[in-house]
């Protein structure tokens, strides 16, 4: 069996007194799409934020592409690394947020080329050429000079995906990418994500779009109260959940 792209063992995370992740184990195979569903407050989004060390962890270990993220291991302990070093590791992991988080003071093109130029020191002309290809791929070739405020939510989210892809990540994290969109705009974002999955990108997607999970996902995880309650192939899990907690959740959202 090949080395997993993401390997999580015993991950724990607390916010103050409240434990939001209580020992998560998870493997994501290279080139596969893992969808994570669950009620709000179940820890799905926190899990994604821990993977690229936007949140500190309180226990457990995590490897992405065989490397620890945000920590260095020495004599059985994990030492947190300074922000400068973590930054280099994050550059290999793309992330797409619920509220897009485009940089409003920059044009669409500038949003996409900023990190490649500043972080990876890609020459500006090369970064620009690549950005235009990516914009074409997400269907927004004509929006390079626009500012984010001039775009619809769906267009902004597609730019955000292009921005993450410009760093040529090994792994893409999607944190409820369609939850903030008007219903008629959800489809265009999911279409871009479907293409990305088909191209072989390893993806972890926190979502409420069960149809997308069934169609595109290779694995499906149901989380509740900071634990993985059930996991399996999307079709099986959605059609015949074993756990009562899963059944209850699905009966409410379907």
């Amino acid at each position, binding site marked *: 069996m090949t080395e997993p792209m993401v390997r999580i063992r015993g991950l724990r995370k607390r916010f103050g007194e409240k434990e939001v992740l209580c020992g998560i184990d998870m493997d994501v195979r290279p080139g596969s799409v893992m969808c994570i569903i669950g009620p709000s407050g179940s820890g799905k989004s926190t899990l994604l934020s821990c993977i690229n060390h936007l949140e500190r962890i309180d226990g457990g270990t995590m490897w992405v592409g065989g490397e620890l993220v945000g920590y260095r291991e020495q004599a059985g302990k994990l030492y947190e690394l300074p922000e400068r070093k973590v*930054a280099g590791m994050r550059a290999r992991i793309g992330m797409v947020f619920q509220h897009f988080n485009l940089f409003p*003071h920059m044009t669409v093109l500038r949003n996409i080329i900023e990190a490649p130029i500043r*972080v990876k020191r890609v020459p500006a002309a090369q970064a620009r050429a690549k950005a235009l290809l990516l914009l074409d791929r997400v269907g927004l070739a004509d929006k390079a000079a626009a500012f984010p405020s001039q775009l619809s939510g769906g267009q902004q989210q597609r730019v955000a995906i292009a921005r993450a892809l410009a760093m040529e990540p090994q792994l893409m994290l999607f944190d409820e990418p369609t939850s903030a969109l008007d219903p008629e705009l959800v489809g265009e974002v999911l279409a871009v994500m479907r293409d990305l999955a088909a191209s072989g990108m390893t993806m972890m997607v926190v979502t409420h779009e069960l149809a997308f999970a069934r169609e595109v996902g290779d694995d499906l995880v149901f989380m509740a109260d900071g634990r993985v309650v059930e996991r399996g192939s999307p079709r099986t899990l959605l059609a015949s959940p074993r756990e009562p907690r899963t059944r209850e959740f699905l009966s409410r959202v379907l």
Partner: protein
Amino acid sequence: MSSGAVDPVDSDLVGPASDEAMQVIPLRHPWTWAASVLVVLVAAGVAWSVATNPAFQWPVVAQYFFDGQILAGLRRTLELTVAAMALGLVLGTALAVMRLSDNKLLSTLSWLYIWFFRSVPVLVQLIFWYNFGALYAHITLALPWGTVLYSASTNDVITPLTAALTGLGLAQAAYTAEVIRAGILSVAPGQTRAAKALGMGPVTIFIRIVFPQAMRVIIPPVGNEVISMVKGTSLVSVIAMADLLYTAQLIYARTYETIPLLIVASLWYLAIVSVLSVAQHALERHYGRGA
């Protein structure tokens, strides 16, 4: 009306008389126009009175407006404003970043600085710096084991100019720091998260992502502070620096032409602030992109 049964789509009963689009007249404000005329008349009357009243001594105003002494004072005012404001902005930005730091030592130091320099009147600070030589006759910079890097008599280092710059700049930094801190806090946390997720380091995030967005909030109050500073520099008269206002005062103390010379100074202040307001507008437009 047609005879017989009632016709439900009879045009006399439903809708307007004509299908043609009607002209739309916006609400009119005749009293605004009347009041405007009145205001213009009053303003013209005041202007006429000021222009023709011989007590204003307009010929004297004209005589001193480009006077060499006045222009030298004007230049001193502008130099002090630019230099003290530059010191205030650079130091203020550093203080704001320290204040927001997770590092308790840095944020406490910044808090103490802001507390002290906002509490003591700037006038007192200026006099204090000017008389620094009375407290420490020599300024010496030395390594712990005695190698002297720099040493000078305090009175050589602290001239009226350096005392004025230090006094105004250090006090300004305390105020600017709070304005910049508010600006930084106004940027959505998601911006920093997104920049981090792209692999940007803390310095890049601050310079490229957070600061340009904070500028939108920072510029209007800083514009205010610059305008305050233009006039605030006149405090330096207490340490015998001849700025614009003090120069005017020196002249009228000799000639007793008090009102015309104060008018000269005021007209120059009006001119400076007008230019600054235009510059502020241009900066606001620049940093307002994409909003």
